[in-house]
């Protein structure tokens, strides 16, 4: 399965991934129009200090704590992708409490949670927006493990 990986030495700390993620999940085309002046609520989050920066997306864990902890059954795994049914979710935040990466987020209105679904749930056509728009290839979308060439 293809997953999002992060190469922190390539991250410029530009936060474009956050903007493109938020925009993709709002389902809007023109980013400047939709996000101008608005507080964004992306599923991917950039961490930084004065030395390093890197983005943290959902890991789509094989043993997903968020899914096992979900009290409503709103979180499921489909083909390796950990997904959330916002219609079932009541926003109790048990998954926020459970995710070891801090990658399940309260949604902007606080009534449900949101998480990276590899852009399957929005209109980007399955190519994650954060990856597509990272200017320095610090976020990549690749098959899981591969054998190192000797």
């Amino acid at each position, binding site marked *: 399965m293809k*997953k999002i*990986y*992060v*190469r*922190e030495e390539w991250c410029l700390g530009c936060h474009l991934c956050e903007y493109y993620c938020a925009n993709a999940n709002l389902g809007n085309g023109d980013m400047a129009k939709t996000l101008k002046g608005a507080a964004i609520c992306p599923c991917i*989050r950039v*961490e*930084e*200090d004065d030395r*390093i920066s*890197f983005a*943290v997306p959902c*890991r789509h864990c*094989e*043993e997903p*704590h968020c899914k*096992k*902890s979900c*009290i*409503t*059954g709103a979180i499921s795994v489909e083909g390796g992708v950990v997904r959330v049914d916002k*219609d*079932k979710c*009541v*926003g*109790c*935040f*048990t*998954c*926020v*409490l*459970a*995710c*070891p*990466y*801090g990658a*399940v*987020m*309260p949604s902007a209105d*606080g009534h449900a949670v949101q998480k990276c679904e590899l852009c399957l749930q929005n209109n980007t056509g399955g190519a994650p927006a954060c990856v597509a728009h990272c200017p320095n290839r610090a976020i*990549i979308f*690749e098959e*899981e*493990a*591969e*054998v*190192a060439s000797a």
Partner: protein
Amino acid sequence: MKHVIIGNSAAAVGCVEGIRRTNSTDDILLIASEPHHTYSRPLISYLIAGKTDRQRMKYRPDDFYAANNVTALLGKTAVAIDPAAQTVALESGETVAYDTLLVATGSSPVVFPAEGLEQVQNMRTFTQLQDAEALLESVGENTRVLIIGAGLIGLKCAEGLRSRTANITVVDLAPLVLSSILKPTPAAIIRAHLEANGVGFRLGTSVAAFRTLPGGGYEAQLQSGETIAFDQLVYAAGVRANTALVKAAGGETNRGIVVNTLGQTNLPHVYAAGDCTESPDACTGQHKVMALLPNAYMQGEAAGMHMAAGGAPLPCAPEPLIPENAIGFFGKHILSAGIYFDDGAEGKYEDFDGENYRCFYYDASAQRLMGYILLGRAERAGIYTALIREATLLPEAQFQQLRREPGLIAFSPEVRAQALRKQVV
């Protein structure tokens, strides 16, 4: 092999899914007293508030039993286990045989005797779908509701009913709300928040006697001398693990059915999981009842994997269990995990900015985060929970950085790479 499961809630579902991770052919028979498709018990208060419905509160999709090849006997109650014959007797007179058995019977509300309580016709406990449905019928705009118990269940009920009536009073002998998960300072913040949202409290007192009023309705006479008139009583003073079946069969029980991390009881081929059990707390090693839904699911899953494995290696290790809870009232979230130190003890770090309250319990000699309570801001709290669950070695400087802001940046580049980089094998 034939696996029998008593129960149809989080622990039972975890067991079904645990079995089916490795095994698609063994027979699974599930027996439950409640006649419903598996539903999320905590959502009964959201049902009252109109924030979910019967369909959306299903814990698994409609085809769950069929998709997992489970025979479900819903609306049937197990009355005895015979561990020598490996059979379960049902109230209906049938007997079913098992190769392995999971007891996932949950807990039942406790009701303490009080003078006149038996006269209160409009009395309900609040743990089942049928309780929520009855309250939806009986509570309207003018109904005065009295709730006994300011714990998680009583307060969730109060929040749900607040959308129907403005007249709700909660009585509890404890001087604090949520005394099982909060310390005095955060409890006072939550109480004030609930009061601001229209829930009344009488704490540190209890009901001495109930009376039926001649003109209709009832009256509760409190120990404090005050009387409160009401139309509907909700009794939410606590729950007790359903241990009777295992106890009568000679199994070891204490406050819950005693199990190990694989869910095994001391009876051969008999497992137990969920609210009916007590099991090792990964944070302290002590056996305790950790009656929360995530734990019920993960215990059930571990038991299911082991029941199906027949001695073969499990598809994954049982998840370490700790007390961990997220609950919210009127938009304010409470996240808590692990254990708390006594007030005044070293290692307690508390701050409150008027909006968000945070308290951490850090053991400097063991270099471990032991527990936390967060009110308000919830974002990325799972980073803290994982440190407690995994008993991660956490030097003080790292703890101090994390305490300011939860983030993977506090960890070493190697730990981060493990989490975020593509692993080359």
